[in-house]
């Protein structure tokens, strides 16, 4: 069977599902960040697949380059914040960081 658009969309959907699972269930802050990375990769794969099979040109790849750029900067900032939180609270479990709750 010829590999077509739907196959790539399926892979991206599986990645997106696992990413959502990470974000919804993980307690560790870095684990949540891993889920965000999975979702960003799924979106980028969709952009490239749609460009290859439907639109042509290079616009999908341009968008993917921007996604990779933003993911890198987002990871740097998020990890710096995680280090700060660990310094003040001695934990990075998301459900133990309840300062703003009461």
């Amino acid at each position: 069977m010829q590999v077509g658009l739907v196959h790539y969309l399926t892979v991206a959907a599986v990645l997106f599902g696992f990413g959502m699972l990470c974000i919804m269930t993980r307690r560790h802050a870095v684990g949540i960040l891993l889920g965000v990375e999975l979702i960003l990769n799924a979106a980028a794969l969709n952009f490239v697949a749609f460009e290859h099979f439907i639109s042509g040109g290079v616009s999908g790849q341009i968008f993917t380059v921007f996604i990779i750029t933003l993911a890198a900067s987002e990871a740097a900032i998020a990890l710096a914040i995680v280090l700060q939180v660990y310094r003040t609270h001695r934990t990075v479990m998301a459900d133990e960081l309840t300062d703003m709750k009461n």
Partner: protein
Amino acid sequence: MGESVVFYLLAALTCVSAGIVALSRNIIYSTIALLGTFLGIAGLYIQLSADFLAAIQVLVYVGGTLTLILFAVMLTAKIENIRTSNTARARLPAMAVIGAMLLLLGMVANSTEWPIKIAKATPSTAKLGHAFLSEYMLPFEVGSVVLLGAMIGAVVLARRAVKRDSERE
């Protein structure tokens, strides 16, 4: 034929390691499994004739982001309870919600008539460079400013953490 075999191998690598990322109880295993996902996606990019993106994927994600994440894990994880460092909560309801969402996505993707053109696999690096220096000039420059800002912000935030720690000791 050979192409589809390669596709299924790469897809299996991507999905299985994404599963380990989402389900492993050890944060180190989750992080290392992300390596497999990134490499599998780089291979899929090559199959979609996005050769430059594959190189960027390996360089930026595997070389940069993953190293950064591993550093953060090593600096924050308590090593005695590393085996259960990445526990999850409320997994069943989350799985139900995600299953419903994926079902909806699949129905939409199946009921849509995609106007598919069979494109030949051609290298796209030169075209990408021309597009960046003509049509997408402004977003490209704004992207570099964003990277600079993020880098300075990360250094300022993380440096304070490391500095105060060393003063305390």
